[in-house]
């Protein structure tokens, strides 16, 4: 008995020792295995992963399908996060960990300065892949914003966001307002004019119908018309002292005071629903917003929405880049893809189908006469081209999005918690300091 018992103990000891060894081996070997993503399949097909935010529209406009037809050896897989802030967080986590990155990553214009200043070593220099000339075909500031001081090109521009004003022609008519685009453009040639017309609308509109969606969107549109916004050329913060920022703040606060805001936070389900209910009659409209309105208001909104040149007739709000992380195993193929996606013809298609305004100069020339039947045949090509022509080459700061978020929240406080504007302004400053102060 004793011998059998001892033998069993020994066997168990041995067994558990083997188990521990196996576990240790399991831990160490995992570091040496290759990551599975983006490998070449057996049939020689290359899978390109594209990770984007919001609605770039490549898939919706059928561009992937077309590219795959042109390049039978390429398969494109797209993942998409609706909210850019969440997308950015996830991207930063992946960049820090060095895993899980796609072959092509989208980058918003408000983040490009951060990438150029802090993460130039994490992305491939597109000039080394021969995309320098492609970038030169874009409006000059687009390329230079994505270029490091030592000349590396980190992203290839897709669209830009020239601003106009979208409005509900049917509601305007009911309230006795003019619906002629030129007449409107003249009436709201300044932001004060825009507020004055709003008061006129509010006096006659149905209860519950307001002038515009939120103070934050008016603020973003007005700030977007400035060359220097939150940070100056040296990267010094000026958001606290800049008269332009203060002017935009004052416009937004008056908007709330006069009861012209529907007080709906952007990109929320409630905001989305309001596109079809008529809760707001105007909306600050960067070109890409046209696609968003079509998506939210649907076919029922066709012919109700219209576009006119907005206050100041210019400004830039949004727009994006495509970049290739260093970790991509198919940088060459990814470069071919983004070159094609941002080329003249494809940018024209995207403008016609989704309203994303081209950054490509030739494409800009080609879309000048485009009219959009959805927006009551508004000459969107002409309106946005004029806005783009007057657009300043914006100075971009690494923390632009952080500041935007702080002001958005502060205006939300003014609207929804009846916080005094001065207190809300102070909250915005505190929030920026908390977020940026290392």
């Amino acid at each position, binding site marked *: 008995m*004793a011998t059998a018992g*001892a033998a069993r*103990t*020994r066997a*168990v*000891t041995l067994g*558990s*020792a083997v*188990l*521990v060894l196996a*576990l*240790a081996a399991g*831990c160490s070997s995992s570091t040496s295995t290759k990551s599975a993503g983006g490998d070449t399949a057996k049939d020689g097909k290359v899978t390109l992963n594209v990770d984007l935010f919001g609605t770039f529209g490549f898939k919706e406009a059928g561009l992937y399908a077309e590219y795959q037809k042109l390049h039978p050896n390429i398969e494109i897989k797209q993942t998409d996060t609706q*909210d850019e*802030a*969440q997308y950015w*967080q996830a991207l*930063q*986590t992946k*960049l*820090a960990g060095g895993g899980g990155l796609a072959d092509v990553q989208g980058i918003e214009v408000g983040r490009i300065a*951060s990438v150029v200043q*802090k*993460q130039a070593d994490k992305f491939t220099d597109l000039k080394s892949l021969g995309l320098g000339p492609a970038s030169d075909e874009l409006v000059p500031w687009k390329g230079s914003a994505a270029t490091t001081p030592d000349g590396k090109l980190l992203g290839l521009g897709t669209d830009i966001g020239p601003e106009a004003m979208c409005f509900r022609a049917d509601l305007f008519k009911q309230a006795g307002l003019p619906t002629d685009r030129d007449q409107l453009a003249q009436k709201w040639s300044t932001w004060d004019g825009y507020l004055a017309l709003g008061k006129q609308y509010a006096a006659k509109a149905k209860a519950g119908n307001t002038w515009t969606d939120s103070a934050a969107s008016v603020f973003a549109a007005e700030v977007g018309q400035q060359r220097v916004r939150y940070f100056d050329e040296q990267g010094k913060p000026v958001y606290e002292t800049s008269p332009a920022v203060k002017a935009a703040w004052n416009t937004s606060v008056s908007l709330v005071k006069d009861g012209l805001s529907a007080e*709906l*936070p952007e990109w*929320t*389900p*409630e905001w989305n*629903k*309001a596109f079809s209910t008529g*809760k707001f009659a105007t909306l600050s409209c960067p070109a890409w917003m046209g696609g968003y309105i079509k998506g939210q208001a649907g076919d029922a909104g066709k012919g109700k929405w219209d576009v006119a040149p907005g206050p100041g007739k210019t400004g830039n709000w949004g727009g994006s880049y495509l970049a290739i992380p260093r970790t991509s195993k198919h940088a060459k193929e990814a470069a071919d893809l983004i070159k094609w996606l941002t080329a003249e013809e494809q940018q024209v298609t995207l403008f016609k189908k989704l309203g994303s305004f081209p950054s490509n100069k030739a494409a800009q020339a080609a879309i000048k006469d485009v009219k959009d039947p959805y927006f009551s045949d508004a000459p969107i090509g002409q309106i946005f081209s004029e806005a783009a022509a007057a657009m300043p080459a914006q100075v971009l700061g690494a923390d632009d999005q*952080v500041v935007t*978020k702080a002001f958005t*929240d*502060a205006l*939300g*406080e003014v*609207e*929804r*918690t009846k*916080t005094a504007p001065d207190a809300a302004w102070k*909250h915005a400053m*505190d929030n920026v300091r*908390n*977020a*940026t102060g*290392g």
Partner: protein
Amino acid sequence: MALSTSAPNRGPDPAPPPSPAPAPARPRPAAGLRAPLFRWDQKAAPYAFVAPFFAFFAAFGLFPLLYTAYVSLHRVELQTSDRMEWLGLRNYTRLIEDPFFWNALRNTFTIGVLSTVPQLLMALGLAHLLNYRLRGRTFFRVAMLMPYATSVAAATLVFAQLFGRDYGLINWLLGTVGISPVDWQANTVASQIGVSTVVTWRWTGYNALIYLAGMQSIPGELYESAAMDGASRWQQFLHVTVPGLRPTILFTVVVSTIGATQLFGEPLLYEGSAAGGVSHQYQTLGLYMYEQGWGFFHLGRAAAIAWVMFLLIVVLVAVNAAIARRRSRTEG
């Protein structure tokens, strides 16, 4: 804690582990090397058995804990995480003068109270009802657990819709009885009630089942004799059920307190932002830690908040344990 109070008389009872038979006492012919090897076997085998647990604990429990402490003493940014700059206790002292931290602590406390108290009271009442013979008892018991089985994300997203300001069901219902719409997102109290509702909805059934199990271990004779003495159902509940459930109640209080301190998913998904509302009005400690670490990319600061939360929970549990020990002493 719950266990120690249920058996108060056991006390510190270091029952010696069953000692292995003294192996060398056995005569073994031709021993040579085998006897010491055998002894080594006997001594080492138990360690080998428990080794996997400790290996895992060290890798996934202890190391992260210590490394977090190490990170919390540095300035570390996610975007440049290879650069660490020694700060000493700056990340901790910073928290003392950080209004956002105190706001988060306050919110964690108020949301904790708003969710835990109604939740446990309702659970107690529901368990009491389910303890009676009633038709379809099993169905009700299973139905009780359904919210617990629902994912946080799904539950929160549905509640966020219900609590919508302009097109939400709850405001519509309030409107039908003439109450003007409530801003369930921006208003401080309303938003905290909104978040607490999700927590309460998810956990009431779970706690009710735990109470039910506790109730069923209370002998039926106690109820019989109470009934014979003329006690009403309410009196039975107060004087038989509640005292009999004391250890179970303590357990649920401890678990709910820890859960409330770590509350994260519900406030994050309520409006989908780590800020916890436009004025951070429902930002909890867990959410603030997340915002610092993964919203602002200040990993050092986030690590410091994580450690403060850890210490806070240790203190809360210690206080609970002290109360429990005191009570069991006064009773025993």
